[in-house]
């Protein structure tokens, strides 16, 4: 279990992480979701004791990372697959990691097998593709057979096969009862990977909830209506629902009443309809709406 309490990190006046409190439970995959620059990586670095928080506290099973003896046997982390010396072989990289936490060197062969890198273990890590580097990073995280696993944007830049592999892999780790905490800036990815979500923007907590709940709350059904008497229709519907103009298509987007009700209201008031189509809200739209305020760098 990971517990953050009012965790903050300031760089001068910039608040990269701002009084963030959350809990990551074992036995589930918890997604850490937020746009780029929201403070996800900074938070993960603070969990792992690499960065010192400006305020607040974060503990793993009640202990600071720095207090852990043989930390790799408790927490496995993949923050950046490129944190490897390019002229060191994959096996040597894992060997020194294992030695540092008194993990038997036989374990190196095992984790290489698990991630499917046995064949290239003697090759220098600098020549690895992003997918292979990512696998090597995961091998390093698994080395100590830890209860807690942290992954920072593990599927970034991977091909579909690699993405699927990592997704299934994380589920397996969670099913084994481990705490899996994985960050991403893509809600669609998280909706398929994570059972719980911690959503942040500009370093602040936006939501902590189950993924299912988050999606249900965030995406609401709307109805698209097109009519030659749009103005009149808008007046009628406004009494019953929220109506917004879609200036691109010239149609109305109605939220709050069903397509059937809209049809009946139109008929009562003798308004001609050219289109009446129920819309399912998209995940990305919902996510954008939630985090719009908190995107740091916006294109105009």
């Amino acid at each position: 279990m990971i517990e953050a309490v009012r965790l903050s990190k300031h760089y001068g006046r910039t608040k990269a992480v701002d009084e963030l409190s959350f809990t990551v439970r074992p036995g589930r995959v918890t997604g850490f979701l937020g746009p780029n620059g929201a403070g996800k990586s900074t938070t993960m670095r603070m969990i792992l004791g690499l960065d010192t928080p400006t305020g607040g506290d974060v503990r793993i099973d009640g202990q600071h990372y720095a207090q852990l003896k043989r930390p790799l046997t408790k927490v496995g982390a993949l923050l950046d697959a490129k944190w490897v010396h390019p002229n060191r072989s994959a096996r040597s990289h894992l060997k020194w990691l294992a030695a540092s936490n008194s993990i038997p060197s036989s374990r190196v062969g095992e984790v290489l097998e698990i991630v499917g890198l046995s064949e290239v273990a003697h090759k220098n890590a600098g020549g690895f593709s992003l997918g292979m580097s990512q696998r090597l990073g995961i091998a390093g995280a698994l080395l100590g057979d830890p209860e807690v696993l942290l992954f920072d944007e593990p599927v970034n830049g991977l091909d579909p096969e690699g993405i699927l592999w990592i997704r299934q892999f994380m589920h397996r780790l969670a099913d084994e009862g481990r705490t899996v905490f994985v960050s991403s800036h893509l809600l669609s990815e998280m909706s398929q990977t994570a059972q719980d979500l911690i959503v942040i923007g500009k370093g602040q907590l936006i939501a902590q909830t189950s993924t299912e709940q988050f999606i249900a709350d965030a995406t609401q059904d709307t109805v698209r209506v097109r009519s030659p008497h749009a103005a009149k229709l808008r007046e009628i519907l406004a009494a019953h629902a929220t109506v917004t103009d879609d200036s691109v298509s010239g149609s109305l987007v109605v939220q709050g009443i069903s397509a059937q009700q809209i049809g009946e209201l139109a008929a009562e008031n003798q308004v001609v309809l050219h289109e009446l189509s129920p819309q399912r809200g998209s995940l990305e739209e919902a996510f954008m709406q939630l985090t719009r305020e908190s995107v740091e760098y916006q294109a105009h």
Partner: protein
Amino acid sequence: MTLLAVERIKLFSTRSPYWCSALAIVMGIGLTAIFAAATDGPVPLGLTQIGSSQLAIAVVLVMAAIAVTTEYRFNTIRSTFLAVPNRTSALVAKTVVVAFIAGLLGEIIAFGSWGVAKVISPSSDLAINTSAEWRHVAGVGLVYAIGAVIAVAIGILVRQTAGAVAILLVWQMLAESLIGIIPKAGVKIQAWLPFINANHFLSMGSDSPEMGGTGVDFKLSEWGSLGYFAGVAVALLVVALVVAKRRDA
């Protein structure tokens, strides 16, 4: 002990220490070979260690600094701190391993230089008898080891190869001897400069004037100079460790 093993694996699983060691050995012993071959008549013992104490040491300092700066360059320092959250012990272990290897290299180069001089000029009296002579040859390893501690400390503080290497080379090869040019005060300051003191430790008095810092009025004995050199190295390392501990990795 575990951490020493870790740093040993890390150091020897990349190529740069091998290259630097080979380069240091070739340069140190090579220079002595050239001197010995070009000397008419007997080669004095004081000539055999110019390569080791003036030239090859620079390569060893670079190797020691690189052992740290590449960790920052490739961010493996973060992997290191994840595996060993106690940054002080991780960095001290690295310092010990690097210093040990530097010391070993120093002995290899010093006695290699001595040996090559003897081979090229068999008639020379190169016997090592007095304590000053032993200090002159065997002391090179100690100077390398302590110099490596300084280099590691600079590497930790600066965190990038180019900067650390530039500082070390200018400091060790140029700055300390240039200060001697300052009228009057120069030699007084030199008496307290670390690498000048290291050379003082190696010098055999009038038998090797080029290394003792000509005209420098040392306030310390030869061994006192080595102690002072070591003291500076330890002080720098402590500063570096404190900074590394406070800094975000």
